[in-house]
């Protein structure tokens, strides 16, 4: 029964990892940008939520839409300014620029918020509440809620990409930038919209991380970025459901590893990551396109 419990807990954690990963995957799929500041931006979103809650005393859940909008606007502006400037100078430049952004963010956060970790209190009733199946499986409402939220975000993203005008343009620009221009699309604006969406998912990821554990200035690269990378690679680039699968596989591997030996949690996750890289480098779902 303990094993079943480990698998279920890992599966639920996988939802959070999918939230970490989908923005990273989207930005790489559309603009071929590997955003090394991805995790730090999630941390920034978490701190913005901390700030908003401290000032206005809104409940944590209410802070999510506010932070999502703020981060989306930030995403559009960053994309149209420094990231676009980096893209026109070549793919390597985007790595250097986002790496620099990551360093600036981490040091900035330490300066303003100190190195102490902070949590986003969801209220005791929700954070500790759980229901039990049998005697050994106990599922926290918070973890289940985050998993459901991840599925909803991915479903919404998929519907948006396949049905809306801008979703179509995002896919078209990802396929062939020049051909999209010939159809009248300003690809820089479309990139901006894709970045806004990616940053919106990053905001949700950062707040969820803050609710489920705590956030500190360096958690962005130490945890979020690495788990996001692992999920994307395990699942396969460019596929949204692959991202969810990748997150779930990573989460289950970590939980099962921890069940075998308490110190094996992280190790087991990366062992599976390496195994996938060796056996199936294109990822578990190998389709090259979204939706």
């Amino acid at each position, binding site marked *: 029964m303990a094993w079943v419990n480990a698998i279920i807990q890992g599966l639920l954690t996988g939802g959070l990892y999918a939230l970490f990963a989908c923005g990273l995957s989207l930005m790489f799929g559309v603009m071929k940008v590997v955003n090394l500041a991805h995790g730090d931006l999630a941390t920034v979103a978490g701190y913005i939520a901390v700030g908003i809650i401290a000032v206005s005393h809104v409940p944590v859940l209410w802070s999510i839409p506010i932070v999502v909008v703020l981060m989306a606007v930030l995403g559009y502006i960053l994309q149209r300014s420094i990231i676009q400037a980096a893209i026109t100078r070549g793919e390597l430049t985007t790595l250097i620029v986002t790496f620099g952004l990551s360093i600036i963010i981490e040091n900035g956060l330490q300066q303003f918020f100190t190195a102490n970790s902070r949590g986003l209190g969801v209220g005791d009733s929700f954070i500790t509440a759980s229901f039990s199946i049998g005697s050994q499986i106990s599922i926290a409402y918070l973890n289940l809620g985050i998993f459901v939220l991840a599925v909803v975000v991915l479903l919404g993203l998929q519907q948006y990409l396949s049905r809306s005008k801008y979703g179509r343009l995002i*896919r078209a620009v990802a396929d*062939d930038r*020049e*051909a999209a*221009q*010939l*159809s009248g699309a300003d*690809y820089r604006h479309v990139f901006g919209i894709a970045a806004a969406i990616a940053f919106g998912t990053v905001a949700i990821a950062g707040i969820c991380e803050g609710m489920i554990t705590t956030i500190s200035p360096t958690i962005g690269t130490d945890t979020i970025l690495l788990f996001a990378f692992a999920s994307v690679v395990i699942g396969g680039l460019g596929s949204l459901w692959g991202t969810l699968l990748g997150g779930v596989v990573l989460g289950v591997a970590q939980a099962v590893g921890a069940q075998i030996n308490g110190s094996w949690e992280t190790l087991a996750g990366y062992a599976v990551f390496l195994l996938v890289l060796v056996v199936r480098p294109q990822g578990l779902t190998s389709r090259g*396109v979204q939706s």
Partner: protein
Amino acid sequence: MSTRTDSGTPLLMVRDLVVHHGQLQAVSGISLTVFPGEVYALIGANGAGKSTLLRTIAGLNHPSAGSISYDGKDVTGLRPEKRAAAGIVMVPEGRRLFPSLSLEDNLKVGMSYARKGPWNISRVYDLFPWMKERRGQKTAQMSGGEQQSVAIGRALVANPRLLLLDELSLGLAPVIVQRIYAMLPQVLESGITVLLVEQDVSQALRVATHLQCLLEGHTTLEGTPAEVTREQVEAAYFGVSDGSNT
């Protein structure tokens, strides 16, 4: 040449255009004038600079000298997407469809910034009736001729005033090429002016109302198909100097 100016003000005027590909000068001072309703054909061998010229008119390449004016306005510095919105729409060489999109989504992308006009998706389905049944299919699974038709459809739904066709015949069997060119009368009927680039000279002579032959970035011959002889075209195409160059 003499009667062409009767057709009113030119739709497109290119003056002394010079375009470089890195160190290489691909287009060396070419001028051309396209009047409304014309089918203007640029012919020439590989490397003559035809496609570069067309890409520069569409805004994808930047000239190092010269000017392009469209509908009386200078568009030399305008971005390609703005030119498309103004009515200069290109069917690029090699089709350049969006492989992860379905046929219909390819057409919908073409419509995203469309001008008002007679063309829409259902009219494209009337022009190419096979498309309707296969609209959900990914274009990567289609034949070259089918892909070329989708690329034409994607350009038409934008309701261009000036349609640029780059090497429609490239890599296609002659019978397929003729079938694709069969759409031209309906396109012209809807008021669209066509500027096309062709390697296939006989195909170009068949459809063009005016033609211009390029060789190594220069104009070697210009006139209506009736004005020029087969020998002149051959000489201009291959650069054989027999005194017939203009």
